[in-house]
């Protein structure tokens, strides 16, 4: 029994090493990939612009819920003037980066994985290799860079729309004073809080894009294999997001 689990542990270590090596090669492939700006632009569109609607909708409703729950809670202490602050801090530091990352994994991450997995299954990646074109720099790296650039932008949009949603509920519906909502928020928020959110979104963007590209690249070349790889992307992305969120939050405090 212990032998089997030891082998399993060794296999786990080996797989981690393989992924780390792949990451290294992928980063190296980003350099020649930068010489193909057209591809990167296409991937920013793929990962970012295509996710915009879902991000905006989610941001709006998240902000509105924040407004409702926040008002309900603060109302009990007569502290509704802190609603703006509460909403902004939650969105900036936690809800913005984390929810955007989870949504990104679901929409853009799965798209990346299945695209690359499909190219693997139909021999397109092999054909590129045989044509002496490195698929890492033509296919993988632009998608990685696209995801990395898109994430902070999506997070920014999510937070702004979330604030608008919170204001919609808090000010327009619940009657918190508009000026107090914003002025309290502004004085309570430091640039450090904003940068914390941006740094988180960048880290999430890098890790989630890496996971999506890695799973697609190493998917089994069958229809079922691509499906499994897509599922793994979502699971791994979600877990890593929450794990890194804790690490980064602790690092910032």
């Amino acid at each position: 029994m212990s032998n089997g689990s030891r082998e399993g542990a060794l296999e786990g270590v080996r797989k981690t090493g393989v992924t780390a090596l792949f990451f290294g090669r992928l980063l190296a492939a980003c350099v020649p990939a930068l010489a193909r700006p057209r591809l990167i632009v296409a991937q920013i569109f793929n990962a970012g612009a295509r996710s915009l609607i879902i991000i905006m909708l989610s941001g709006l409703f998240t902000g509105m819920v924040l407004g409702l729950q926040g008002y309900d809670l603060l109302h009990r202490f007569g502290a509704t003037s802190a609603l703006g602050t509460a909403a902004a801090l939650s969105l900036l530091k936690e809800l913005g980066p984390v929810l955007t990352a989870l949504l990104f994994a679901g929409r853009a991450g799965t798209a990346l994985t299945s695209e690359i997995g499909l190219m693997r299954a139909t021999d397109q990646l092999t054909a590129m290799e045989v044509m002496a074109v490195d698929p890492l720099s033509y296919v993988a790296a632009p998608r990685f860079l696209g995801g990395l650039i898109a994430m902070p932008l999506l997070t920014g949009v999510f937070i702004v729309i979330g604030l608008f949603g919170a204001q919609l509920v808090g000010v327009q519906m619940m009657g918190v004073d508009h000026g107090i909502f914003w002025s309290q928020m502004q004085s309570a928020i430091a640039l450090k809080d904003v940068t914390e959110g941006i740094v988180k979104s960048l880290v999430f963007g890098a890790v989630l894009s890496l996971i999506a590209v890695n799973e697609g690249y190493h998917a089994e070349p069958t229809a079922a294999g691509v499906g499994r790889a897509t599922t793994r992307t979502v699971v791994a992305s979600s877990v890593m997001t929450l794990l890194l969120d804790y690490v980064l939050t602790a690092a910032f405090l």
Partner: protein
Amino acid sequence: MADSQSTSQSAAESDTVIDVRDVHYSIDGRPIFAGLDILVRRGLITAVMGPSGTGKTTLLRLITGQIDADRGRVSVFGREVADMGRAEIYATRRRMGMLFQNGALLTDLDVFENVAFPVREHANLPEPLVQKLVLTKLEAVGLRGAAQLMPAELSGGMARRVALARAIVMDPEVLIYDEPFVGLDPISLGVIMRLIKEMNDVLGITSVVVSHDVHEIATIADYSYLLSEGRVVDSGSPAELAASDSATVRQFMTGSAEGPVPFHYPAADYATELLGAERG
């Protein structure tokens, strides 16, 4: 293209383009090749035949340098593949063209861009020249009018022809065909066969055809290898193979169900299993 002239002087002296010598290769402990010897001569159409699962695709990956043999040597253009660094492998691949079983066209580019892909990546030609080059190759495979279509809109046969145009766009010295006849209707079959013959006769391209379509091979191949269980069972011209007295070769060439390759998958005794089922 011009740059292949100088380096191929030494290879031109030698008649052999691809030399596979006593190659052994296993995947996860399962042996694929156990002492494989194949010689591909310049200017000929060489066929590699065998039952499904004999590792024909693995052979192609060994030749293109995607994998290294466990034992033995694979030489291409006189140079051993295992000795080549990454840059040299890429340079060697540029002298070869490969046609995949399902075409393997890039799905987000149209037909024109697919054929133009190698040119755009490796040569810095002015756009009008690229246009002419691509259209010429498409004309050679009869699909110049389909230049604007997307791969999803092509039939299997058409996709394969576009892939062929892409494979020859850089004027390779060697063309490798991976199962080019699979799944085609009789007309497309005839077209592909004609194109393979033309590439070889007219352009002098050395061709390697991996297939198990005995009749098609017999029509176009100059020299054939028959693989079974990881090694070459027999080789020769189609006529020689047809006249072979090896049981394995005969079973393959005539397509009979009985022979060295058994019809029945290994199982327990029939009577016992049947009776046992009734009692149980």
